[in-house]
């Protein structure tokens, strides 16, 4: 990469881990001046983490950051990134909803101050909005909290391109078009091409492969915290891009599952659900004893459907039919799962409280018996089930949550990406238990963001924009197909 063009950014061997998870495992990345770089990969591939490192909001554990030819270790921070002309439009919005559009522009620019700053900030942001999104309909005096999501996104993008006394070399756009309509998205991409021709660089992260293929000069593909392919955009097409993102080798299938999906229709239906308000898409059907996978990109309606099913249990619901008691295994352990101040035993038995009662009072002996039983069945690693739940490692806390659901009377178990941040040993143990419970007639609905976990499922439904867009029986399910359906339909 030693062309005549100036290197704006060179990352070498950047690594970052969160607990047991390697978010980045030694990434190299080069960006030239006047280049539009596309960055693609499945959820959790490490794209956003890498951009946080580049924007200075996360410090890497290892690796070199070279900006504009000079190494920047140790002293790299948000402020340094701004001084060096690197801006980032983060995936989650970074505007203050209580301030006006002009005031939000001022927050990015320490130089805008003194008499009349309000007018200058307002003109600056309004001019940039006019330039990028003609006909945007946003006034500099509007309070951001009053604007629709798409308009907020436009303000944030325009703000990233405004210039005062600091230079502008590189703008990182993380899923910039996710809340824009097709017209404004087109306006943005045309603008990106224009400023790239003027010598500013751009990194475009997008799940819309058409955008990346159509507007980027070079495409970098990430998987599992590593760069797995980096070539000129012309050398990719949609197909080769999708296969670079996913694992193409498909040889881990087990014969037992094949056999079961064949006699699917023999078992009675346990759950029949259609995402609320999405009449266009397909519906999800689960038969007794099946493990159903919910797949697709994160946040495309899987959790919502699980909650819809959870709420519909034991009630009449137009879109949802559930035949038995339901239990939910939460994905966000700390927020929705464990009772922090309770013991492990209490955390396990809370769902089955009714069985512990004798004349309205809880029987400690029954509680202890159930806790001991599940400690052994789930192999929860603790000397005493009366220890506080937080004394367990993350994986063992998750086992306790599984014990809560499996120990209950629930016939249907909903799992909301429960294996997030759990080590592989625990995962394999839990997979075996889930399969054994399914053999005994329990039904599992399993939302997962990990491709490998889908191998445990009898049937996979792929979600996009809140709809069920694909229904893949075990035999037909390949990572390729899941990815194809997760991304936009092939035109």
């Amino acid at each position: 990469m030693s062309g005549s063009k100036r290197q704006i950014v060179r990352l070498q061997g950047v690594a970052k881990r969160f607990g047991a998870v390697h978010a980045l495992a030694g990434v190299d990345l080069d960006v030239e001046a006047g280049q539009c770089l596309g960055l693609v990969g499945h959820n959790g591939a490490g794209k956003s983490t890498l951009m946080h490192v580049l924007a200075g909001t996360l410090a890497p554990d290892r690796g070199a950051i070279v900006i504009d030819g000079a190494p920047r270790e140790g002293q790299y921070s948000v402020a340094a990134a701004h001084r060096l002309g690197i801006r980032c439009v983060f995936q989650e919005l970074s505007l203050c909803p209580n301030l006006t559009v002009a005031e939000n522009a001022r927050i990015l620019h320490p130089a805008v101050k003194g008499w009349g700053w309000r007018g200058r900030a307002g003109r600056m942001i309004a001019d940039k909005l006019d330039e990028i999104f003609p006909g945007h309909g946003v006034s500099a005096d509007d309070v951001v909290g009053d604007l629709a999501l798409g308009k907020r996104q436009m303000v944030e993008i325009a703000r990233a391109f405004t210039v005062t006394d600091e230079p502008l070399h590189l703008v990182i756009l993380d899923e910039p078009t996710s809340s824009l309509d097709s017209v404004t998205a087109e306006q943005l991409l045309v603008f990106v091409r224009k400023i790239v021709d003027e010598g500013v660089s751009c990194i475009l992260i997008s799940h819309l492969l058409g955008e990346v293929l159509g507007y980027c000069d070079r495409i970098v593909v990430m998987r599992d915290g590593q760069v797995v392919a980096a070539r000129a955009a012309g050398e990719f097409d949609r197909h080769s891009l999708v296969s670079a993102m996913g694992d193409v080798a498909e040889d881990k299938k087990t014969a037992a599952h094949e056999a079961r999906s064949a006699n699917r229709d023999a078992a009675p239906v346990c759950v029949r659900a259609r995402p609320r308000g999405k009449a266009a898409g397909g519906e999800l059907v689960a038969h007794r004893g099946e493990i159903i996978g919910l797949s697709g990109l994160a946040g495309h309606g899987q959790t919502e459907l699980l909650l819809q099913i959870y709420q519909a249990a034991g009630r009449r619901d137009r879109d949802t039919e559930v035949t038995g008691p339901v239990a939910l295994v939460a994905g966000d352990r700390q927020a929705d799962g464990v009772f922090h101040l309770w013991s492990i035993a209490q955390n396990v038995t809370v769902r089955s409280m009714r069985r512990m009662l004798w004349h309205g009072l809880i029987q400690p002996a029954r509680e202890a018996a159930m806790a001991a039983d599940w400690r052994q069945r789930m192999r929860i690693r603790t000397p005493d089930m009366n220890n506080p739940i937080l004394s367990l490692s993350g994986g063992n806390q998750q086992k306790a949550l599984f014990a809560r659901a499996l120990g209950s009377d629930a016939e249907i178990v909903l799992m909301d990406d429960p294996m997030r941040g759990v080590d592989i040993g625990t995962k394999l143990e839990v997979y075996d238990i889930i399969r054994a419970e399914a053999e005994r007639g329990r039904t599992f609905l399993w939302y997962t963001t990990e491709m490998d976990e889908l191998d445990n499922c009898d049937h996979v439904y792929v979600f996009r924009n809140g709809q069920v867009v694909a229904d893949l029986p075990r035999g037909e399910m390949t990572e390729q197909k899941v990815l194809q359906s997760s991304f936009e339909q092939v035109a």
Partner: protein
Amino acid sequence: MLRGLGNPRFLRAVLPAISLAVILGAIFAVNPRTMSPIGLNLLLQLAVPVALATIAQMFILAVNDLDLSIGGYVGLVACIGATFLNTDPLLGVVLLGACIAAYAVMGALIHWRNLPSIVVTLGMLFVWQGIAILVLPTPGGAAPGWITAIMGFKPPLVPFPIVAAVVIAVVVHFALMRSSYGVILRGAGGNPRAVARAGWSLLKTKLAMYALAGLFGVLSGLSLIGLTTSAQANIAMPYTLLSIAGAILGGSEFVGGRVSPVGAVIGALTLTLATRALTFFHVPPDWQIGAQGGILIVVLALRALINRREVA
């Protein structure tokens, strides 16, 4: 900004002013003699320290915190003002400066250790009160002459409390709502992460806001002894709840950096007048506190209604 009178944002902005006008009108109707400069002065005198304490509370609310210690703090300032500031002005000024610094440190601590502000300030309430009792064990002391002179100042035409209220509202409005650094301070309440990502120090914003609260707490305590001429440790205990109620009444919110200095001052005036109005209406003293709470609930319920319309 003003898109018709039915606009919820406009309604919310004028609600504090309307509640003030209603209460003032009721007082004038019951007792027309209050409609004179002297009458207004007597009615509104005690609103000045309350307004200053409410502004102090508003600074804390702006960064999503809550200050339960302001009542004890204003009491401590009053005690220092009625003793050291009178007998040994230099030492008094140093002590008051230390009070402000202590407030800033409290803010830094809350930020550093990510502590709940309610817990820290509830603890500090008793610390301030304890120090105040050490400074002035029995009610007494004397306010410095210059403070009583300022508070007793009688400008022509307009009563002093009204002049003071307007000055406080305008100064804070420009400092917090119109200045370029005020934007950062309010932004830190609206979306702290966004402000940090733009390269600003959240610690500095907390320090600044708590120091400002400390400063206005000092002004509140001094203006209070300017009216009472002496002090006692518990003199300002009701200020904690009055300041929170006044700020909320004036359109501030508990989270999200949405505050209004003008509204806070009007809210403080309304609450002070509400107390007075109940006396005029011959509400028995036993029922006054309850009736005050009733007024508060009515006004806040109105605001909740307006907010609901905004969401719909």
